[in-house]
């Protein structure tokens, strides 16, 4: 079963704009991770945020986590055409066999 649900399912923006994707989940987590997948390729890890963290930055990426609302957001600033990809959140659930459960993803298209 899929724990995370990304919103929106698809997002189209112009180069230079910011892109925001949201992820909601259902159970308590140890951490939440965001991955990117370019068409026809494997997933690439972007950022991990632990359950006791509220915000994390990595380059043009900003991730927030609200455990009370069971939600996370990924912000990509100053987007580029190369950011066009699918973005997935993945949760490491508390008490699980320490595996990741992936959401259904947001397809981001950045237009030049």
């Amino acid at each position, binding site marked *: 079963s*899929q724990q*995370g649900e990304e919103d929106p399912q698809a997002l189209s923006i112009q180069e230079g704009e910011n892109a925001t994707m949201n992820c909601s989940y259902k159970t308590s987590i*140890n*951490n939440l*991770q965001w*991955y990117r997948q370019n068409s*026809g*390729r*494997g*997933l*690439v*890890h972007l950022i*991990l945020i632990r359950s006791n963290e509220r915000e994390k930055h990595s380059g043009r990426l900003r991730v927030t986590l609200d455990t009370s609302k069971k939600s996370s957001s990924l912000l990509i600033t100053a987007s580029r055409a190369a950011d066009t990809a699918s973005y*997935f959140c*993945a949760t*490491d659930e508390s008490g699980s*066999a*320490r*595996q*990741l*459960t*992936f*959401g*259904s*993803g947001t397809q981001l298209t950045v237009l030049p």
Partner: protein
Amino acid sequence: EAGVAQSPRYKIIEKRQSVAFWCNPISGHATLYWYQQILGQGPKLLIQFQNNGVVDDSQLPKDRFSAERLKGVDSTLKIQPAKLEDSAVYLCASSYRLPDTQYFGPGTRLTVL
């Protein structure tokens, strides 16, 4: 550092045939994962190994799917017999330990006709 290797990249078979996928994880990574990704969906975990032992295979359809990881390094995933609904991308990933960042291979795209 070499990434996760998978082969073949593409495979087309008829239903009821068998197929096998191979994965070589990043050197030193104890944990290996096989995922199934159906078009338009996120990856679904099929099986997770820690060294050569199975940690979780609760979502592996064991009547037709099998996987092994001999000597705690390479792994193979087999489907026998294949069904139409097995058409998907099969991704292998590895991590240094549970539940670290996972590193994914390029995947094998399986088409069952």
